[in-house]
């Protein structure tokens, strides 16, 4: 309200002006006063709804980005360089990931990928504008990753979610660091290495990376170059088709000081399990940081534990119980209407895991909105209620 306690206050006026744009508050930044003011005549829309028809990046309603380059890394992986639109949060840390949505056959598909660029990265090749990059490896069953590696063209518009994740390298970096990666697990670490390189703070870093063959090593040339330029950085490649799996027992021989190092590990689940065990046995679990990539394919489960995020309750259900019933049985106040899939009153967002549409078996995943009255849990999942 403008009038506060019998008088005008600047803050009151500001709040009133911004009110129509309140939903984009975090992303809108300083433009929000203007946005709110113009929205008085564009209501119920925001000016962004008109502007983004001219340029999809001119909207802070939802974060969008444009792919400016698709660079092949290996036969089955590629780096995507993206120019984010209005409202992107540039305060990310090396090692974090972002959500990215790609439009295929009219439907947006949503996945998360690690950023591979250092913070505030600019590229002279692209007009020295701030950009971000991710690297994607095509998974045999991953329909989206294959599409990203071989199917997307520069110029494509994507949806973006703010960077997040706790798998980050602090600054200044620790004196002694160990990176253990395999396959596409190298991507978040690449961001960390590039950040150290850019800030010229490469401490004593050992990187052990496993890949099947020499051709499968992502960023191979760059790793070699860094290895050559920074005496304190050593890159070790384990080519598993020739040398077999890297055994953790070798750590003692090759890097006897591994226990003193802060370790970041990322790769397949089995490898991470083994590493966690090893570190726990050595009683230095607090020096280990791991990042587990979500498996791209669904857990294909039937039923599971449904967690209701906001209320903190949960329910154990089978694959035939609707999420709505699950919530109600757990005492959660679920929105509902027709209970037969026609009114959309019961729609909520999945924050993690997968669900299945009981009518047609379609799968929905993290980030999607589902009608809880006709969806069931497909494995464990969390709902935003």
């Amino acid at each position, binding site marked *: 309200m403008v009038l506060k306690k019998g008088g005008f206050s600047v803050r009151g006026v500001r709040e009133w002006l911004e009110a*129509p744009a309140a939903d984009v508050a975090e992303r809108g930044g300083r433009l929000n006063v203007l946005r709110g003011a113009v929205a*008085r*005549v564009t*209501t*119920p*829309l925001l000016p962004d*709804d*008109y502007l983004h*028809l001219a340029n999809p990046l001119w909207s802070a*309603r*939802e974060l969008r980005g444009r792919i400016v380059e698709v660079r092949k890394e290996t036969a089955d992986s590629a780096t995507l360089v993206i120019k984010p639109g209005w409202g992107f949060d540039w305060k990310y840390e090396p090692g974090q990931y972002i959500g990215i*949505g790609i*439009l295929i*056959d*009219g*439907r*947006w*598909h*949503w996945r998360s990928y690690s950023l591979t660029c250092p913070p505030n990265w600019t590229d002279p090749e692209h007009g020295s504008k701030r950009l971000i990059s991710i690297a994607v490896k095509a998974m045999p069953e991953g329909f989206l990753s294959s599409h990203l590696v071989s199917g997307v063209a520069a110029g494509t518009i994507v*949806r973006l979610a703010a960077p997040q994740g706790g798998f980050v390298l602090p600054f200044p970096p620790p004196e002694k660091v160990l990176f253990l990666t395999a396959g596409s697990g190298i991507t978040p670490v690449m961001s960390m290495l590039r950040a150290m390189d850019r800030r010229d703070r490469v401490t004593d870093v050992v990187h052990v990376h496993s890949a099947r063959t020499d051709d499968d090593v992502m960023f191979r040339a760059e790793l070699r170059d860094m290895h050559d330029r920074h005496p304190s950085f050593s890159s070790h490649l384990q080519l598993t088709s020739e040398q077999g799996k890297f055994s953790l027992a070798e750590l003692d021989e090759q890097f006897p000081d591994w226990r003193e190092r802060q370790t970041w590990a990322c790769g397949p689940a089995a490898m991470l399990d083994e590493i966690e065990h090893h570190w726990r046995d050595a009683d230095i679990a607090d020096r280990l940081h791991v990042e587990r990539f979500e498996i791209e394919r669904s857990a294909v489960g039937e039923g599971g534990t449904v967690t209701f995020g906001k209320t903190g309750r949960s329910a154990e259900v089978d694959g035939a119980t609707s999420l709505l019933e699950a919530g109600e049985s757990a005492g959660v106040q679920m929105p509902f*209407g*027709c209970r*037969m*899939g*026609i*009114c*959309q*009153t019961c*729609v909520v967002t999945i924050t993690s895991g997968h669900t299945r549409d009981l009518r*047609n078996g*379609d799968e929905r995943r993290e980030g*999607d*909105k589902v*009608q809880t009255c006709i969806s069931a849990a497909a494995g464990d999942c969390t709902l935003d209620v």
Partner: protein
Amino acid sequence: MAITDIKAFAHLTAADIETLGQELDSIRRSVELSRGEQDAKYIRRTIAAQRALEVAGRAVLFGSRNRWAWLGGTALLSVAKIIENMELGHNISHGQWDWMNDPEIHSSSWEWDMTGPSSQWRRAHNYSHHTYTNVLGKDEDLGFGILRMTRDEEWRPVHLVQPFANVLLAATFEWGIALHDWDIEKQLSGTPKQLMSEPNKEFARKITRQVAKDFVFYPALTGPAWKSTLKANATANFVRNLWAYAVIFCGHFPDGAEKFTVEQLEGETSGEWYLRQMLGSANFKAGPVMAFMSGNLCYQIEHHLFPDLPSNRYSEVAVRVRELCDKYDLPYTTGSLGKQYLLAFRTIHKLALPDRFLRRTADDAPETSSERKFAGISMPTMPSMPNTERWADRWNETHWLPVDPETGQRRGLRSALNEAKVVLKEKARHEKEVLREAKVALQEKARQEQATLRRKAARERALRRIRRKR
């Protein structure tokens, strides 16, 4: 009483209804499976075109002191508002485009350019109306609370002003809908009396913004043209209101859009639900442009069967639904826009009158009928209403041949309705005939009596003469 037993009314067995339901499910599934890039393009283009029309209209209105600019701007704005309401707001809020997974074109976030907040409308419309379509006392859209649209509703003196109420509703349709939804929202949220309840605040916020936009800010922006801009905005809203009203009334109130009682809801199967949607709504004939401008609600039947399938697919769904109607011999209520509206119009005016002025009952009126309609016809000797509970089933079994013995065609509701029409006509003709004959007989009797009287009088006169002579 409106339909209490949809099986008996539709002349279908439980098994028939179940198969019908499965066939409709498979139509739904095939559309779901084939949704894709083309459909997504359709809605995105529609959005872009609507925005462009609106911007153009608003821009032209800056020169609205000129008559032609006023007309052009108002026309552009009216069309933009119609598309915004019908093809965008209504359909997106139904979740027709949720499958695209685009947060900006999603039922949970779309807000439309109408007085009422989308969220309140979604609850009232998507839930109350679409779940309980045409069920008396459950579907609040039946007459929108102010009109008496079926003889099942008791006549009250207030209904005398119905013709006037109808005009008022048409002219201020967005307000009618907004108030209606607001009321339902307050009931549903359990805060009907609280002043500072969430529904109230949301409603107030939306009204303020909408009214301020069209009647304060835009006119102010156009400076010296403020007066003509104001008029243009009011006109555009008015035009949109009339159109939306006409489309809605043509979809729900022409003859043949049946009403149901709560009894029908008890234990309703999904097949019966489909059937109720099919028999409860009506289409009107439209070419591609009209279909688009009505938000594809000229396919109201298809929309009620599949409220969340993309609107651009209704025309192809309609072909398949019609095939099913032929197969099960069910009526497919449609007609020209004018005809459908006139039928609704007639009902509005007829039902403004008390029942004693109406010839038919809620069982065989043109706008509402029930399974009892067929009873009175084939058993003319029976008292007007049979008293056994399941008479309809028995009657169907004993009197109705589900298959035509000559052609082998299924004989369902459509045939029954046609036959009922013939029989009713025949009955009326017969009654008239009897009346005429009775009248003739009476006249004849009167004539004879008169003749007798005359003869008697003549005789008496003669007698008197004779007596005098003596």
